[in-house]
Structures are given as structure tokens and as C-alpha cells.
């Protein structure tokens, strides 16, 4: 396999628009920095040396390509399509986040920025930023909602161990949304010296595009690996969980704009159920609006105040969904479903028991939805589930939930 390439996708346009979505709705202070960042990224993605360096770190540091694993027992258990797992959980730091943080850290280094900041929800992105910052010798400050600091204590410790400073955020809902506000405030203040490593396909242009481009290594590898294993590049379906949507975009993008196109299924968090209002399903139950610099589907009340998201998984606990997902949904290029906390917990246990793989609670949403649709698919169909991260970080929380019920 020749390795990762920067692909040319039809969206966004030069103003960062995916149809009506995306854009740059941020304080004017940041506009010159975003213009500079977009130009630097454009230059980097055309530079063969940058590409070679990025590929080398993906291979030697992140451990790519991650395996595409035929899940034989899960396939038997579900009794339908053949199920493959894209093992992002085996990437260094235990999640797909490293694909993006390596790319952005290399860009930060290229731009001469010595200080990086980031927001984190579950802590996976924060750990990943702390990791690359340690490796490249950059100062790292990670913003994390107080509620998430409590839920993900182990990841807080990992970040500190890696030399990052973790700043708990006490405003608003004390989760990822507020951590992102605080990271943007830091960037507005320290924009001249600081590189903001945004972790998902959200935020002002060029972030949704840049993060998508780096994460597209997932889908590119799926194509190459499936060709090797099944003699075809394109499966019948790709299933991935969607919070902000970076792992899903990474898996979808190399398929979404080409023919033949598989079913691309994004799985949002239905939390305690869409009808309860306690969920994080922006496409299923949100309205369009602007948050964190981007026009996209959002959870909001009728006055345009952002509504709190809820999910058992901290990484999906975000009230918006990236502009490219908003676009793919409107255009019918991808479909979006939602599974509840309860179903996700079943998916978590299903993968553990059938395959000996404990997925992140985020990824368990994709497993849970696969368990619903795969049995009805023919046996010669091929489905790829993106296992975006490993579940070690969630074991304590799942134990607590299960014990509470016992």
C-alpha cells in the first residue's frame, strides 16, 4: 500500500462552505489567524516533504495502517453481512484522534508555534494532543469541562503525565461545548503565539476541512485493505459513530463523493431517548444554526440558545455535528441514525464478548447500530464498522452504571 495521500474533495469551497454549512463565525481577532492557517495548510498539503514526514509519523509513531479485521464471531452472532472492524482502537493513544493531532502538530511546528491548546470531551483528543506535544517538545494546555474531568479522571492523569496542563472549565454545561468555548477564548487571547489543535470536524474554516483531510487516512486504508481481503475496494456499508464527527468523516470521505458509493451510516447518540430531550443527536433532532464558528445542525431551543447534549459517552456529548455531516445528510450522500445509551452499552458488551475487543463507548454506538441492521443484510454483503477507540477509559464508568442497576 502506497500510503496516505491528500485527496481532492468537491467540498468545501474556498470560503469553507459545504453547501450552506461551515464558514467562519468567530470574533474578528481570529480571522487573520484563520486565513494564515488556511494558507499554511494549503501549502503543506502540496509539499511532498510534509507528506513524507506525516506518513512516516503515521507509520512509525501512530502504528498505521491499523488492521481491518474480519470479525468472524460477530458476523456469526449477527447472522447477516460479513462484518469487518477498522481497528482505530489500535492506533497509538487508543483512538483515531492521533491521525489529526500528528498532522496539526506538524503544521504547528512548520508555522513556528511553540504553544498548542485544545479542547477535549472524553479526553481522547486531549491525550492525543498531550502525546504529540510531548513528542515534538511543545507546551500544551488542554481545556476540559469539569463534568468530563470527573467522568474521565484517568485521561486527566494521562495528560498530566505527558506534561500537559489540564484546565477544568466550570462554565455552562461543564462539558465539551464549554471546553471548546474556553479554548477559543484562549486562542483569541494568545493568537500570535499559539496553535489551536481542534479535535473534530467542527469549528471555523479551515478546521472542518483540515481535520477531514488528516482523518481520511481511515477511509483510504479501508479501501486498500478491503481490496486485498475481498477483492473489492467498496463495501456495502460503512458504520461510524458521530459526535462532532471526525472518525466518521475520516471513514466516509474517501467513499462519499465517488461511485460506487456504499451506504455511509453515521450513528448519533440518542442518550436516554430522542423523546426525552436528553440526547446528542443533532441531525436527528436538531435545527440549523451557528456554534463555535460554523453553521451546522445544532441542539438548541426556540430562542437559539444552545441546548445541553447528553450521552453516556463523553466523546459524543456535543450539541452540534460538523458542517460536512450536515451537508452529507441534506444531500442524501450519507444516512444518520441514533442509538440510546442502553443500546450502546449492549454494543459495548457484544463486541467484548464476541471478539475480545472492548470498544470506546463512542464506538459502541456504531457496533450497536450494526447489530440492528446487519442481520437483515445478505451474507455476501460486506459491512465495515469503524472502531474509533478502545474502551479502557470507559470501563470504570460502565462498571458504575451496571452496579447502580444491580
Amino acid at each position, binding site marked *: 500500500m502506497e500510503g496516505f495521500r491528500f485527496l481532492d474533495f468537491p467540498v468545501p469551497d474556498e470560503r469553507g462552505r459545504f453547501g450552506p454549512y461551515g*464558514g*467562519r*463565525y*468567530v*470574533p*474578528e*481577532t*481570529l*480571522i*487573520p*489567524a484563520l486565513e494564515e492557517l488556511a494558507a499554511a495548510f494549503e501549502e503543506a498539503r502540496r509539499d511532498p516533504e510534509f507528506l513524507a514526514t506525516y506518513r512516516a509519523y503515521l507509520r512509525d509513531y501512530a502504528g498505521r495502517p491499523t488492521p481491518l479485521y474480519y470479525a468472524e464471531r460477530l458476523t456469526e452472532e449477527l447472522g447477516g453481512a460479513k462484518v469487518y472492524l477498522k481497528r482505530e482502537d489500535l492506533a497509538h493513544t487508543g483512538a483515531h484522534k492521533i491521525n489529526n493531532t500528528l498532522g496539526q502538530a506538524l503544521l504547528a511546528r512548520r508555522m513556528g508555534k511553540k504553544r498548542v491548546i485544545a479542547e477535549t470531551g472524553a479526553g481522547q483528543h486531549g491525550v492525543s494532543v498531550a502525546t504529540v506535544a510531548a513528542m515534538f517538545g511543545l507546551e500544551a494546555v488542554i481545556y476540559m469541562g469539569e463534568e468530563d474531568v470527573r467522568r474521565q479522571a484517568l485521561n486527566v492523569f494521562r495528560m498530566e503525565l505527558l506534561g500537559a496542563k489540564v484546565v477544568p472549565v466550570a*462554565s*455552562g454545561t461543564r462539558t465539551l*461545548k*464549554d471546553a471548546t*468555548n474556553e479554548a*477559543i*477564548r484562549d486562542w*483569541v*487571547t*494568545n*493568537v*500570535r503565539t499559539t496553535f489551536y489543535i481542534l479535535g473534530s470536524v467542527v469549528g471555523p474554516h479551515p478546521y472542518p476541512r483540515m481535520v477531514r483531510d488528516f482523518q481520511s487516512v481511515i477511509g483510504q486504508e479501508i479501501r486498500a485493505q478491503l481490496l486485498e481481503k475481498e477483492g473489492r475496494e467498496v463495501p456495502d456499508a460503512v458504520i461510524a459513530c458521530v459526535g462532532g464527527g471526525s472518525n466518521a468523516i475520516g471513514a466516509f470521505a474517501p467513499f462519499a463523493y465517488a461511485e460506487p458509493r456504499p451506504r455511509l451510516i453515521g450513528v448519533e447518540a440518542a442518550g436516554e431517548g430522542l423523546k426525552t430531550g436528553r440526547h446528542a443527536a443533532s441531525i436527528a433532532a436538531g*435545527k*440549523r*444554526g*451557528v*456554534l*463555535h*464558528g460554523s453553521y451546522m445542525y*445544532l441542539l*438548541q431551543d*426556540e*430562542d*437559539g*440558545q*444552545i441546548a445541553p447534549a447528553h450521552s453516556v459517552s463523553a466523546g459524543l456529548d456535543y450539541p452540534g455535528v460538523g458542517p460536512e455531516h450536515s451537508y452529507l445528510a441534506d444531500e442524501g450522500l450519507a444516512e444518520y441514525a441514533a442509538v440510546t445509551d442502553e443500546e450502546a452499552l449492549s454494543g459495548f458488551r457484544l463486541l467484548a464478548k464476541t471478539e475480545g475487543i472492548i470498544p470506546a463507548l463512542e464506538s459502541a454506538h456504531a457496533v450497536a447500530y450494526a447489530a440492528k441492521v446487519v442481520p437483515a443484510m445478505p451474507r455476501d454483503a460486506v459491512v465495515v464498522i469503524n472502531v474509533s477507540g478502545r474502551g479502557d477509559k470507559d470501563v470504570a464508568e460502565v462498571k458504575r452504571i451496571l452496579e447502580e442497576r444491580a
Partner: protein
Amino acid sequence: MNAVVEAFQRAQAEGRRAVIPYLTAGFPSPEAFLTHAERLAEEADLFEVGLPFSDPLGDGPVIQRASERALLQGVRTREVLRLVEALAGRTRAPLLLMTYLNPVLAYGLERFFQDFAAAGVRGVILPDLPPDEGPEVAEAAKAAGLATVFLLAPTSTDRRIATVLRHTTGFVYTVSVTGVTGARDRLPEELGTLIARIKAKTTLPVAVGFGISGRATASQAARAGADGVVVGSALIRALEEGQDPLSVLRAVREGARL
């Protein structure tokens, strides 16, 4: 000419810089807001009202807290309309409305500006909208008879200055520092250069905000060439601490005279 520009000219004719206090609507409570706003507006040239938003990413901790507290009391768009209308009946200072874009979109672009114009607002400030991102927003505001105010910052290039000015009809809101709102002890030295760069391209008034906390900072802004100063966080902090925000405003007025 619009009421916003006129207010600057009246101040200038009296040999002063315009003084623009800001309060978050509904803070500390809807009725207390009205009382304080009326007293402050009495000694102001323009008055800025904030429509609270759940995710004010351009604001520092003081205005964040005020917004959260207002929202907790149920102060949303309709209540702000009521408060603005009541305030407009009690003051001669032209009212400016500051809010983030999402509440505007949720209410409906045209209707939002029409209803606030009808309630007595004269100008609008949207801190998360670089004007070229949504030219239709500025157009809708102008169509409703509102003056448009956009932000420029120390990082703004000459090209950004030109772009922002093209959409501005009220005044230029110059952010004194790279940062969020909040009172500071002093302003950066480079403020004068920034104001000069802006004034080289426009005859519109230039006001300085973010960091104005009292006499010294207001005086610094005045000496840097500002035609007006905005003070917000320092007033809200005074309210939080049980002090009279009017004394802060008077100190700012003093400074803005020099």
C-alpha cells in the same frame, strides 16, 4: 445620517469622547437591569444592551456570568425586546443591541431586526459575525433602519479593515487587545497605531472597547485617538460587588475627556 453617528458628533461638539456603557439585559434581574440601565444611560451618549447567549465565546468571565444568570431567569429574545422597549421610553441615548448570531437566526433574520428596531434599538453589534461571512445579515439590519457596528482587532490586516468598513454604517468597534471582554489595568501601547490605521480609511467614528475599566484606561483610549469608549465588564463587576456602577461610568467619562 443615523442616530448612532449623530450621538458621536454631539459628544464631539461638546469636546468629549462618546461614552457607551454596556449591560447584559436581565442582569442582575430584569427590573434591576432597567433601573441601572436608565441611570447609566442618563450620563451616556449611547447605551449598549446585551442579549444573553448560552455560549458567549467572545466574552470573559464577568459577562459570561451575567449572561448565565440572565438566562437562568428566563431572559430570552422576547423578554429582551420588552426590556429594550421599556428602556427606550426612559432614555434619550440611542440604544445598541449586542448579541451572537444564533439567537438572531433562530428568531428569523428580518423579523429580528425589524422587531428590535420597532422596540427602539438604533444599532446592532454581532461579535461572532465577520461581516463578509454573512452579508445578508448586515443588509437585513440596514433594511430595518439599524446602524451596523462590527469589530476590528489588533490583528486586523489593512485588507480586513477595508472589508469590515464596507459593511459598517454606525461606528467601528475597535477591540483594544487580542482577547475577550474584561476590565484591564492598562491598554496596549499599539492601540494608537491601530486607530490611525482605521482612521486612514474611514470618517466613521471609532470607539474602543474591551479592557476599559476606569479613568486611566479611558484616558489612554482617548489619547490614542478614539472617538468613544465602551465600558461593560467593569460596570457588571461593580453590580456583582454591590457597588454603584455609576461611579465607574463617571470615572470613565472623566478619563474620556482628557
